């Protein structure tokens, strides 16, 4: 036999809810905020299967954009990750520039 005996998937099956459709902005505004911790010391994380699709959709869809060649990071859709909830890892307090990567193409597939 050359095939895998079984395939177990933790969260990848939940990603469709996150990135196939754009939700209208007005729907976002009325949604209840769900705060989650994002770091490894938090009590729950998406790696352990907490509402995978829902989590992804809210926390990891960036809505930054490029203007005149520079990237304006506006955060992620919803405030699902509160910066106050990030504890336990070495957090850098200085100036960070974002948007340097990602300008050369829409899709990296090959």
């Amino acid at each position, binding site marked *: *036999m*050359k*095939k*895998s*005996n079984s*395939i*177990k*998937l*933790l*969260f*990848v*099956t*939940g*990603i*469709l809810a*996150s*990135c*196939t459709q754009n939700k209208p902005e007005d729907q976002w505004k009325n949604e209840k905020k769900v705060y989650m911790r*994002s*770091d*490894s010391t938090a009590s729950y*994380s*998406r*790696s352990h299967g907490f509402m995978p699709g829902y989590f*992804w959709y809210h926390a*990891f*869809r*960036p809505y*930054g954009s490029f203007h005149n060649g520079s*990237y304006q*990071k506006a955060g*992620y859709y919803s405030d699902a*990750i509160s*910066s106050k909830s*990030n504890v336990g*890892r*070495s*957090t*850098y*307090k*200085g*100036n*960070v*520039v*974002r*948007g*340097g*990567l*990602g*300008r*050369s*193409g*829409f*899709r*990296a*597939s*090959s």
Partner: protein
Amino acid sequence: MERITSGFRKNWEHKLENLGFGYHSLEGLYWDESHYYQFSSEEINTIENATAELWQMCLEAVDYVIEKNLWYRFNIPEWFKNYIITSWEEDHPSIYGRFDFGFDGKNLKLLEFNADTPTSLYEASVVQWYWLQEMYPYKDQFNSIHEKLVDYWKYLKNYMNPHYIYFASLTNIEDVTNVEYLRDCATQAGFDTEFMAIQDIGWAEDIEEFISGDKTIMEYIFKLYPYEWILDDGFGEKLVKNNFRSQWIEPAWKLLLSSKAILPILWEMYPNHPYLLESYFEPKHLKDFVKKPIYSREGANVTLFKNNIPLEQNSGVYGKEGYIYQQLFDLPNFNGNYPIIGSWVIGQESAGIGIRESVNLITNNQSRFIPHLID
């Protein structure tokens, strides 16, 4: 190798979407289960052995490029050379790669190696496996990609500290699905993981560190974003300044193997090797050949010549770094459909195949993924 008619499953779109496979029909039909390819055990053994041997040849080729100082062939800036050499000498780990083969059941030839940012991983590893389980559960398939991925992440865990990996890509559904699948496997292997958009990777100039969305220093970054684009974006200098405090996966040495420039170099190292097509940096004596940019994606800017006359051409934005010229391989013709075998290396092992089929001789982003089985 046969192409066999098979029916679409009832609610096939729904079944695929339940697996999280959302790009089955994005630009026309992509996942196509109206047919499948059937291979004999001998044919699969041929593909498996060729994959293993070509992987070893590619590793030799990286050494050869460094030793012979062939950087100019790859259009790699002088200041990035040492970064690549260090990633190679320190054996920075590679997770995966996909060889594209022309195969007619007997002759097998390497068309190119997608060594840096190969995709179609999820459909090869998971989607076609579930198709087989439902349609032909007693048949075999050349596909242990999933278990080899989980096993290889487990193996790497012994050498990595901390056990926290950021997975980054552009945010289109195809790239995100492939990266999320890899992240799923790494999580199963025991890593803590986090996805972030590649645009959100931050740079702190004063400490020369890559910074995550929550302002944490990023020790390990898996990226589905090609090195040539990292260089174009002006991020290559930052990688050099950072001096590997952040370790990027795939490693920088894969840039050499993902470039088409490796094809003439392999031919120079292994002339007349049965798995290689004659390839050069100029057309030389070739009459039936394919002209490929040193760097390109999804068949862009590839031109196919027969008797020195251009027969088929794909448009695109690539080619400024130069071209290579590769002898034309006659892909098998199944009623106007031309299959290419994508053969996966996971860790250091040959792990399985996925087949993309096109009505054109140059496979592009309009090709369809066709499942397979072993008779």
